[in-house]
């Protein structure tokens, strides 16, 4: 029954549009982080177009669910998702990283829908805990989601936060790890081995789920399980591919922070939107 109510077609379409926006934005800006934006598309699409309770007309609605992009360098995926959801005009996306634009290189509060200025890695989960704690204090039923990079897990603060959330029984908090296997200098398992990553969170008393981060049904299923879990925060390890959707970017650490040129992007976008 659940199965039938999932609008897979719409989600797929949104994902394709958002991938196109990401590529166009970074090509226009001539800088930015396409790799970790492309790996997180399905996660943000599922949250903003299926799971989260939010209203683009009321970004400051006190009862809204919150999304914290802790890996703030993936700002292109956040801005384009917010634009597709109606928080800002899609025409504004091309001002990314330009002087006097609201669309800062890393998430900025001037953009409606941005909950937290992630950018310095490691600080987002703590802030998400604060939001979740406030929800408990105020007896509100909103949920808080935080998206973390797998390289970002290197930061000590992540693990300080990881210890705190179970202590406070934050079942209204879901952390999602974009497990794309790559950070800035190279492969995570070479720069700072993170495996067995699921066990680490388990040892910190989290409810741990692992999914294919591009499979809408798996992501949705995990988010629902997280919601029905009582007294414990959930972490979803989403297995993804950095640079997903662009063959020459996939698995290439160089595209962590490098923009493709405009001509290449024009061709890519054309095929992407036709499919």
């Amino acid at each position, binding site marked *: 029954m659940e199965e039938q109510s999932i609008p897979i077609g719409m989600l797929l379409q949104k994902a394709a549009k958002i991938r196109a926006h990401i590529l166009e934005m970074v090509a226009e800006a001539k800088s930015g982080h396409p790799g970790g934006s492309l790996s997180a598309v399905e996660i943000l699409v599922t949250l903003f177009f299926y799971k989260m309770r939010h209203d683009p007309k009321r970004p400051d609605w006190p009862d809204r669910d919150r999304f914290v992009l802790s890996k703030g360098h993936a700002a292109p995926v956040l801005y384009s998702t917010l634009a597709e959801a109606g928080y800002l005009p899609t025409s504004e996306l091309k001002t990314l990283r330009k002087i006097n634009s609201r669309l800062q290189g*890393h998430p900025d509060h001037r953009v409606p829908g941005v909950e937290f200025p992630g950018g310095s890695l490691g600080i987002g989960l703590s802030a998400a805990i604060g939001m979740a704690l406030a929800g408990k204090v105020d007896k509100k039923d909103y949920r808080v989601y935080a998206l973390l990079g797998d390289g970002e897990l290197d930061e000590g603060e992540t693990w300080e936060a990881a210890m705190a959330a179970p202590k406070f029984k934050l079942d209204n908090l879901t952390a999602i790890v974009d497990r794309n296997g790559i950070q800035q200098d190279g492969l995570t398992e070479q*720069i*700072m081995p993170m495996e067995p990553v699921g066990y680490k969170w388990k040892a910190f008393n989290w409810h741990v789920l692992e999914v294919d981060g591009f499979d809408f049904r798996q992501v949705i299923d995990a988010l629902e399980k997280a919601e029905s879990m009582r007294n414990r925060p959930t972490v979803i390890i989403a297995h993804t591919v950095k640079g997903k959707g662009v063959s020459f970017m996939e698995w290439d650490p160089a595209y962590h*922070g490098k923009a493709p040129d405009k001509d290449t992007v024009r061709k890519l976008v054309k095929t992407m939107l036709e499919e």
Partner: protein
Amino acid sequence: MLVQLASMRDAYAEVLLELGQEDSRVVVLGADTSVSIKTSLFGDRFPDRFFNVGIAEANMMGIAAGLALAGKIPFVTTYAAFVPGKCLDQIRNAIAYPNLNVKIVSSHGGLTVGPDGASHQTIEDVATMRAVPRMHVIVPADAPSTRSLVAQACRTLGPFYIRLSRPSVPTIYSASKDVEVGKAKILREGSDIGIIACGIMVNEAMEAAETLSKTGISAEVVDSHTVKPLDSETIVRVARKTGTLVTAEEQNVIGGLGGAVAEAITESYPVPITRVGVRDTFGESGEHEELMVKYGLTSKEIARAAKHLIKSR
């Protein structure tokens, strides 16, 4: 005239290789930004003496302290936004307090990181590090002086903070014209006003002096690359000679070079002073030249400040 541009981080990566060759105690630590800052070249040459700790700046600082305690000379490098930003406690308690021989070299300092925006721009690191006892604070103006100052830091016992900017900058020093840690360098003599600058603002100061000379104002330009310990002697001498000072830095006007100079002259020879720098505000995304104009980090701004000071004298 052909202006030669060179990158400070290239110069840093090169001199590290030489230092590593010369002294086997030299070790280098990185935090997942080594390819971009090019300290990975040291890792390629000396894999046993290079440690990439992942995105974990506080841990990196603590490890550097331990390496120094065991006789090594650690060079610790990542973006200035995160060093000292993420690890001031480790710098203070694990490194400066026990006076350890750790060389912290940050890259991408100031606003000129550009499009990454305020979260990655650093406008308070010089002030912060200045306030830590025992810390040397150095902001080089170009590639050749980066080379020389880094090498001197390596040979001088104690903690150093050296801050580099991202853009390639015009070369001011020929390799022969030397810079010395702790000694401000007079780059141009003048009598009407003294311009005390550091980092990429030294070149702007030189250009301002050129502009000012066309309106009959003779400006003395000083590269105060060592912000701490400040060469107060030279700066007070310039104040006595010119009677008024402008400072220029790619930092908040609070507590950096401007603050240091104001403190020094107030105590021994007060003269009017204007601080050119970021006016206590966060930066934003933009190309580095655009940001310098918008936030007043230009030769024009220095010249304007100088003229104003002279007029109101």
